[in-house]
């Protein structure tokens, strides 16, 4: 695999309302990781702990849906700075497990977690202005910004992520992805 552009592809990654499982799955490509670092450079990614965008990126991989205002802010930043934006994993695509709270009023959620919880010494609903606000429900990423591709799975299989990166770097669309590595669990 070589880069057509004569430079490395710049990839940004983030985890919104996700568990970092999708990130772990990308690390699961085993020895192909040596190939990966030859053709890809990360920017704004937990992989190399870069917290801000310092350049425009070719590919943005987003794990997790939007459960709070900060997720929406980060997702919009990704849309702005990434040429191709991909929803990675069930949470980004469908809301995933966090979406099990959809339909339960936010007030009830807070009360259950911070007031009625038996292991709490003091019941107090956190209300610091530094904390992002919880949204009324979980939003899949493509309901917030335009998303260019989807890689299902919980987590997506490492082989699927590897195939997808190869397709993108070859300038192809993810519509051509082989279904054999696609699983929703």
């Amino acid at each position, binding site marked *: 695999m070589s880069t057509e552009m004569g430079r490395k592809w710049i990839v940004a990654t983030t985890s919104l309302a996700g568990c970092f499982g999708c990130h772990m799955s990308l690390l699961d490509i085993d020895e192909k990781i040596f190939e990966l670092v030859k053709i890809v450079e990360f920017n704004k990614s937990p992989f190399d702990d870069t917290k801000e965008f310092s350049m425009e990126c070719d590919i943005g991989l987003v794990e997790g849906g939007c459960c709070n205002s900060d997720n929406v802010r980060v997702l919009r930043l990704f849309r702005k700075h990434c040429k191709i934006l991909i929803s990675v994993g069930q949470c980004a695509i469908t809301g*995933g*497990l966090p979406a099990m709270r959809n339909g339960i009023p936010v007030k009830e959620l807070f009360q259950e977690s911070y007031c009625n919880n038996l292991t709490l010494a003091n019941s107090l609903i956190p209300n610091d202005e530094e904390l992002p606000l919880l949204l009324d429900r979980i939003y899949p990423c493509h309901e917030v910004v335009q998303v260019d591709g989807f890689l299902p799975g919980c987590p997506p299989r490492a082989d699927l992520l590897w195939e997808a990166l190869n397709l993108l770097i070859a300038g192809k669309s993810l519509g051509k992805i082989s279904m054999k590595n696609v699983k929703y*669990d």
Partner: protein
Amino acid sequence: MEQSYIQITIDGREIMAKEGQSIVEAARDHGVVIPTLCDFKSLPPAGTCRVCMVQIGGRIVPGCTTPVSFGMVILNDTDDLRNLRKGLIEMLFVEGNHMCPTCEKSGNCELQNLAYQYGMLVPRFPFLFPHRKIESHLPHLLIEHNRCIQCLRCVRGVKAKDGHEIFGFIQRGINIRVTIDSTDPDALTEETAQKAMDICPVGALIKKKTGFKLPIGKRRYDVNGNG
């Protein structure tokens, strides 16, 4: 009475179908694949899911409830039909809450497998996130309304010993849901729970204490492949 045969054509292939058969049955007899979901072995067809739709002339009809007739010219494997079927599958996903990662039926689920076969990466419709319940009061059976696709397989196929129905539907439209007559002793047995779980194409009817029995890699569609 002697069986009479009539000639039909599916995607240009001539087939001798038995008179009185449905299009789906005739296709199956000749190894032509028409996808189905609410259809189940010996049960009478219900025509609820619509994934078996085929085209005859300018009309799109369900293949499971349409009997063959002489000289019928049927289109099955066309781009338009594939797209329509895929759209239907996507609608089933968005109108319920299908959290495959936590579902006991994942890997053994007919809806999930169809979605793989039709290349669904994301449904084209917005998720409805309906408010549906999980009923866990029965001794052996869990009813997970979030995953029910209203296929009527349980109603048609799981009956009491004397043949009367124990599953049924209540309410209408988007609120319709499956229910079981829990005053009937036959509805409460372990055997009924097993039968219900086996007949349900999705994870809406689960026999308690059997979830996730098969490890990933050994499940029905892991082994038989998909997509």
